[in-house]
């Protein structure tokens, strides 16, 4: 396996590379060295605009630039993009349907030492409520770059979710990415593990743990959380009869919420959600935090066994 790369690093690198191909502009809120938009800034200083620590203004400035025909990216930590500037995103970008891409980094518990104020566990839930918003949560560096390019080519608002911590590279350049399409990474018949972001790696590891116990788990990667790949979801529910979702996010309203909502109306098989239970994060190193909040392969495997036990079929 290649060296670990944080998805935020891949985001910055993608902007810097794709800036030569597409007429994009990039805004940041005094976090360019952390969101890695500094890589774009270094190559295209005339198309980079620091807004200072003023996220609400940044979002609406980008909306205005998009209304004037540009393709702007805005970047900050997920907490201050989706969180602090939620209403600006909702009213300024979502309602007028403007072509703004929100590159939110430092999402989830893997922010680590900075603690709960900076560990955004709610952004997927918040963004899901905005009509027309596309939500992409890449699992590795390869998927991040492909997601950035897909976002540029998509006409309309896109929320891209990236992490702070270095994560393994799971895919190679032949990886076929499309907005709205789930990707089956491993087949199985007893249960489907639907994972997004950093939890894709954990889901693949959970599959190995389950194999040792005689359970055949399918693993699918839902980088796109909205629009949800309902077709693949329904097939997984019908073919395996049980679902476990895994996300680095609160279990309320994120991938687990979206999957539960969709299946309850179509094929109500057991859906068990792995994520941060209804609580705030805390400071710490990433591995013990993942352990503490149950974001591990072992935890996914445990939930998968429980899901299999609940199966009745539909």
């Amino acid at each position, binding site marked *: 396996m290649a060296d670990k790369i944080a998805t935020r690093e891949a985001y910055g690198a993608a902007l810097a590379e794709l800036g030569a191909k597409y007429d994009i*502009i990039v805004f940041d809120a005094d976090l360019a060295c952390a969101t890695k938009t500094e890589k774009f800034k270094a190559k295209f200083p005339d198309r980079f605009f620091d807004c200072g620590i003023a996220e*609400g*203004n940044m979002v609406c400035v980008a909306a205005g*630039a998009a*209304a*004037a025909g*540009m393709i702007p990216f805005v970047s900050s930590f997920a907490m201050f993009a989706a969180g602090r500037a939620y209403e*600006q995103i909702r*009213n300024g970008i979502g*309602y007028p349907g403007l072509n703004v891409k929100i590159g939110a980094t430092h999402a989830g518990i893997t922010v680590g030492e900075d603690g709960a104020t900076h560990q955004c566990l709610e952004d997927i839930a918040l963004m899901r409520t905005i009509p027309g918003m596309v939500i992409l949560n890449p699992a590795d560096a390869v998927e991040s770059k492909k997601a950035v390019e897909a976002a540029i080519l998509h006409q309309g608002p896109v929320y891209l979710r990236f992490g702070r911590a270095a994560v393994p590279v799971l895919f190679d350049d032949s990886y076929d990415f499309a907005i709205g399409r789930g990707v089956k990474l491993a087949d199985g018949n007893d249960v489907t593990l639907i994972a997004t972001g950093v939890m894709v790696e954990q889901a693949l590891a959970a599959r190995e743990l389950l194999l040792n116990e005689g359970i055949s788990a399918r693993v699918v990667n839902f980088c796109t959380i909205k629009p949800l790949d309902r077709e693949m979801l329904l097939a997984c529910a019908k073919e395996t009869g049980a679902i476990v979702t895994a996300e680095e996010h609160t279990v309320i309203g994120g991938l687990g919420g979206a999957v539960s909502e969709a299946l309850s109306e179509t094929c109500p098989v057991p859906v068990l959600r792995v994520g941060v239970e209804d609580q705030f994060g805390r400071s710490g190193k990433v591995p013990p935090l993942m352990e503490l909040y149950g974001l591990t392969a072992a935890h996914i495997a445990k939930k998968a066994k429980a899901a299999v036990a609940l199966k009745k079929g539909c």
Partner: protein
Amino acid sequence: MDQEKKRELGRKAAEIRLDIVEEVFSASSGHPGGSLSIADILSYLYFSEMRVDPKNPEWEDRDRFVLSKGHTAPALYAVLAEKGFFPKEDLKGFRSIDSYLQGHPDKKHTPGCDMSSGSLGQGISAACGMALAGKIRKKDYRVYAILGDGECEEGQVWEAAMFAAHYQLDNLCALVDWNGLQIDGRIKEVIDPTPLDEKFRAFGWHVISIDGHDYDAIEAAYKEARAFKGKPTMIIATTTKGKGVSYMENQVGWHGKAPNAEQYAQAVTELTAQRDAL
């Protein structure tokens, strides 16, 4: 400004005021006070200052207008209809379920509306983005925005003020409608944002203070803004909330309330007389 032009702009403003009253009366809701206060300014902007084409509302090189105080949509719709962006009879649908004229401006569905607005403090930021895009693309269009005085209590206005000055957006000219009233009362009693001129000056803007009902002053201010380079311009326009309808003038209660049939008839009589006197 010559007398004929002044009369023409005055007549347009009176028409705009009549339409504002009509819209709010038809909808039985809406915000007449702060709509009436900016009618003269909008008349000047759309009939003397701005480069727009009602037949081509998405024209790339047009000047842009953002009504940051979006609740005064009746004034925006009235001037857009007067300019010919859409039929005047559509104004009667304001706020109704089968109309595209939403309670607050909706750029997606309203010809000539350059930005959705209504959540205060956000429109001025969007205007900054349009001005910045103009600079990046080396376009010569200008961007105009109108803010409420109460709106200046929103922190985002000052974030935008910093941004516009930092990026030297001299193609941006914003205006504060200083009518002195907000929903809860007199602005100086609710929460006093003064002195706005000194504040915007300190934030790096070129600031001009005028009487917002005096066409000579309005014209001079917008001409000065156009000529001023290196800084965005803020015009602080002192106005009368409810201007033109005697019982609404300077009354806090007419911020967001529709007239009844009798009040409506009186408003129409007064505004028609004002128009016909010109």
